[in-house]
Structure formats: C-alpha cells, structure tokens
C-alpha cells in the first residue's frame, strides 16, 4: 500500500515539475526573442532611421519610406475594413441575432480569421493586381482590409452580445426604433470593447508581410502614390534580412524592433482597455 502511494506521489511530482518546466520554456522564448531583438535593434536605432530613405546596397540610410508606407497602408486598411466589420458584427448581434445567416457568417468569419494570410495576397493579386496590370499600394491596403474585417466582426459581435438586454428593452419602451437603440445605446455601452477590436486588428496587420508581397510589393523611393508600388516595413525587413549586406541586415533588425514594440504596445493597450471594462 505504501509503495503504491509513493509511486503515485512520485508520478505527480514528475508531472508537476514538467509543467513548471514547460511554462519556463514558453516564457523563456518570449524573453529570448525580445532580448535578441533589443540587443540587435537598439544598436542601429538612431534618428537617421526615421529621417532617411532606404539605402542602396552597401550605403547607410534609414527606414523613412517604409515606415510612412506602413502607416498609410494600415490607416487605409482600417478605414476600409472597420466600417464593414462593424456593420456585419452589428447585424449578427442585433438585427439577425437568431437568423440562420448569422450562424453561417459566424462560422465562415472564424475560418477567415485564421486563414493563411498568403492566400489573401493571392486573392487580391487575382482580383486587383492582375486586372490593373501593376502592383499598387491600394491593392496592399485592400489585402490588409480583408484581414481586418474578420477581427472586427468577431469583437463587435462579442461586445454587442455582452450589452445587457434590459438596456435595449428600456430604450425600445421609449418608442425608439432599432437604429437609434443600436447607435445611441448599444454602441455606447460596447465602445471600449469595439475599440479594443480595432486596436487588435491594427496590431495584427502592422506585422503582416505575406499579403503585401505581391500586392503593394516594395518601393525603394519615397512615394505616396497609391497607384504605384509602395514600401512597407515588413516587406523591407524581409528583403533586407535575406540580403548579404551588413547595413541592410542592421536596418532589418531595427525595423523588426520598431514593429514588434508597436505591436506589443497596441496589444497591451487593447488588453488594458478590455480589462477596465470587466468589473462593471
């Protein structure tokens, strides 16, 4: 009897030690990656990174045009994707909460949410780049918008579903039509959560590379023309990191540092926003 007990305790101890080890393993990677990123990226971080254009091979330069390009693409993608996402999410949580369309859309949306982003790039290439005959910043923005939509749909629906029904009923009892109830009551109650969703979407697309590779392509020069290829940070990192030139590789690390900390800052802000909501 005692031997059995000892064996059970031993097995338990082994499992528990393993689970602690697994957790340190997981967190260790995070520390390791961020550490290397800081180490490699900080040494190249200077004002000229934000003030100069991407250099030709073997010369010094900065990342101004890809940073600007990334900003433009992200803002455009959010402007295109967010309204569609919010409207679709509104339908699913409000008008069509019990309609069969909603459950189909929810299923499809969840699949789009984790579909490979490179396929989105191929899709936009087929419907925009190939017919237009050239790569363009606009196509890149639309590709990113396709990634924004499912994220926003999901959070909007979830957040609107959290709005207590008595609020809707009280507003309806005053004789207000649904559109006013949604606009002035539901959206207001769900605002923090919906903003969180948009922030998460921005975090998601600001590091996306695959959908931009054959839509926005890349541009070594300063260009704000949406109809021409446009540089973006992730694509420049991809190109520079795989190059044999030291200066380019250094810029790639610096760009990686900028992206990562932007993304982490965004997701931490989003988390804080949704955390302050919870107790209420």
């Amino acid at each position, binding site marked *: 009897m005692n031997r059995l007990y000892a064996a059970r305790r031993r097995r338990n101890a082994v499992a528990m030690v393993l689970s602690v080890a697994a957790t340190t393993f997981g967190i260790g990677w995070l520390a390791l990656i961020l550490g290397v990123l800081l180490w490699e990226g900080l040494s190249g971080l200077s004002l000229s990174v934000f003030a100069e254009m991407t250099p030709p091979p073997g010369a010094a330069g900065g990342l101004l045009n890809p940073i600007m390009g990334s900003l433009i693409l992200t803002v455009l993608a959010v402007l295109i994707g967010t309204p569609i996402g919010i409207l679709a999410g*509104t339908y*699913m949580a409000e008008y069509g909460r019990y309609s069969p369309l*909603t459950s189909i859309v929810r299923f499809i949306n969840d699949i789009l949410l984790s579909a490979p982003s490179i396929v989105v790039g191929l899709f936009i290439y087929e419907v925009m780049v190939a017919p237009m005959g050239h790569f363009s910043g606009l196509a890149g923005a639309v590709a990113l918008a396709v990634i924004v939509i499912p994220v926003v749909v999901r959070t909007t629906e979830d957040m609107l579903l959290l709005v207590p029904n008595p609020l809707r009923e009280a507003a309806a009892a005053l004789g207000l039509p649904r559109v*006013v109830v949604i606009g002035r009551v539901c959206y207001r109650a769900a605002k923090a959560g919906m903003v969180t969703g948009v922030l998460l979407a921005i975090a998601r697309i600001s590091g996306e590379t695959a959908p931009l590779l054959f839509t926005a392509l890349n541009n070594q020069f300063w260009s704000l023309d949406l109809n021409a290829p446009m540089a973006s940070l992730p694509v420049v990192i991809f190109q520079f990191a795989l190059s044999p030139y030291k200066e380019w590789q250094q810029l790639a690390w610096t760009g990686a540092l900028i992206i990562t900390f932007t993304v982490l800052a965004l997701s931490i802000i989003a988390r804080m926003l949704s955390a302050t909501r919870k107790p209420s």
Partner: protein
Amino acid sequence: MQSTGRRPVVDLVLNGDAAGFGAMPARSKRLDRLRWGDALFHQLTRAAAAGVLILLSGVIISLIHGSLPAWRAFGFNFLIEDRWNPVTEKFGALAPIYGTIVTAFLAMLIAVPVGLLISVFLTELCPLWLRRPIGIAIELLAGIPSIIYGIWGLFVFAPFLQQTLQPFLIEVFGYVPGLSLLFAGPPYGIGILTASLVLAIMVLPFITSISRDVFEAVPPVLKEAAYGVGCTTWEVVRYVVLPYARVGVIGGVMLGLGRALGETMAVTFVIGNAHRISASILAPGTTISATIANEFTEAVGDLYTSSLIALGLILFAITFIVLAAARYLLLRIERRIG
C-alpha cells in the same frame, strides 16, 4: 424642451409635439424618417454580413480561376508529381505539400504537450497573483509578427541549432539503423527541423490559451470530488480535467494546426527552399506558403504563376478543412458550457 447641448434621443420624436395637435403631421413625418432610417440600416448591416460570405466565395473562386491553366496542363498529376522545374515548365506540388505537412506535424508534436502542460500549470499550480502576468506573457508570444520569428530564426536560432542540437542528433542517432535516415546529412542549420521548432514556438500560445480556457470551464465540483477521494493533482488532471475538456483541447490543437499549416514568413526564412523530398529532417525543404512567398513575384509565364496559385488553392483547401473541424469542435463545447 431644451435644445442646448446634447439632446436626449427621445426629443427626436417628441419635441415636435410641444405645440399640441397642430404638430401632428410633423411628428408623423419624423417617425417615417426614423422608420426608413431603421430599414436602411437593417439592410446595410445585412449586406455587410453577407459581404463576409462573398469574401470567402471570392477567395475560392479567384483561386480556382487563377489556377485553371495549371490544372489543365497537369491535371491530377499536379498533386502527386514532385518535379518543380521553372525552366522546362514542369510543375508538381508534392514536395511543398510534403514539407507543409511534415513541418506542421513536427511542430504539433512539440507544441501540444508543452502547451497542455503550461495550461495545467496555469490552472492548477500557479498562485493566483501570477496567473494573469504569465497568461499575458504567453499571449504576447502570439502577438509577435511572424516575420520577427523569421529573422530571429535565421540569424540566431538556426546557427545555434547548427552548432548544438543538430550535431548532437547526428551523433546519437546517425548510426542507429532506421533512425539514421531521419537524421542524415550535414547540419545545415536551416531546414525542416528548424522550421518545425520555430512553428512550434509560434503555435504554442494558441494551444495554451484555448486549453487553459477549456480547463477553467471544468466544473470545480468535479475536481473537488476527485481531490476529496485522495487524488493527486496529476490524477485530477489526467482522469477528470482532460477527459472533460477533451473536445475543446482537440479544437484548440486543430486551430494551432491550421496556423502551422498556413504560416508563411517565419518558415520562408528558415526552411531552405529546396524542392525535394528527403527523409532527413535536417535537410532543407520547402512548404506551400514558402514556395509562393519566394517565387511568386519572380514567376515568369502564365503556367508558373498559375501553378503557384494552384498551390495556394491546395493550401486553402487543407487549412479550410482543418479550421472548419476545429470550429465545429469548439462550437460543440461552447454549447455545452453555455
């Protein structure tokens, strides 16, 4: 009624009434406008929801349309042929398909046990005040863009593996019959094994956060009953928590698998991009997404482009099936909890 500042919404309808009966037409006009606005907004939101469906069908139709020339030229052979020769324009998808499946499988082999153990730690062992920070740290791993994993894998992780793990594997298993095939060849650093390890780190947060959520959904009464009859923590996890959470865990694993199959940038950096099938996991290989990312902009000729789009279609079909299965399983567990 005051009209300064923000007017209460009720005013929209009622303030016309202040004058008494004379205002009735104005009131009904306002009501009409609201009714129209409501109907319009209803249709608008419905169109947007339908837009999501259109988006998916658009993806499928455009991929099929774009890949037609490749299917016409190669037919079913495209799936079982491993030649990939842009010069003679002979294309077959077997090598990328093989690479995709092998890297994803190896990644899951590592990530699933580790992810489950982390969830066990978070739900059973971890002191309450530590739970949130650790949970957030693991989820931040999911937030790091995949290109960062790529550049890190190429410059830091691959050289590290080349000097440590890979020579070790070759030394230990290189002369064991059977296993020697798996670990044959020089340590390149980059290759299938490296890609799998990077993928494992990337999908770890997905598996962890979902299995933690389903572990937490296990009714405390069940666990308390098990503890009450003298079970150890491990026995509670093994015989109560895991069986209860099985469906959800499988859903989370499938979700992670969907990610691993479709992951592009991180893999592109470290897989080596060699269109061949070799038994050794130390050898360079390629995956569907890495092939597309590497070759698409340089592809000349319709058949080449079309073959790459056909690869995209295959990838989409595989991930669609995996993700649909994952969502279905997770939906089932949501219904049970709700």
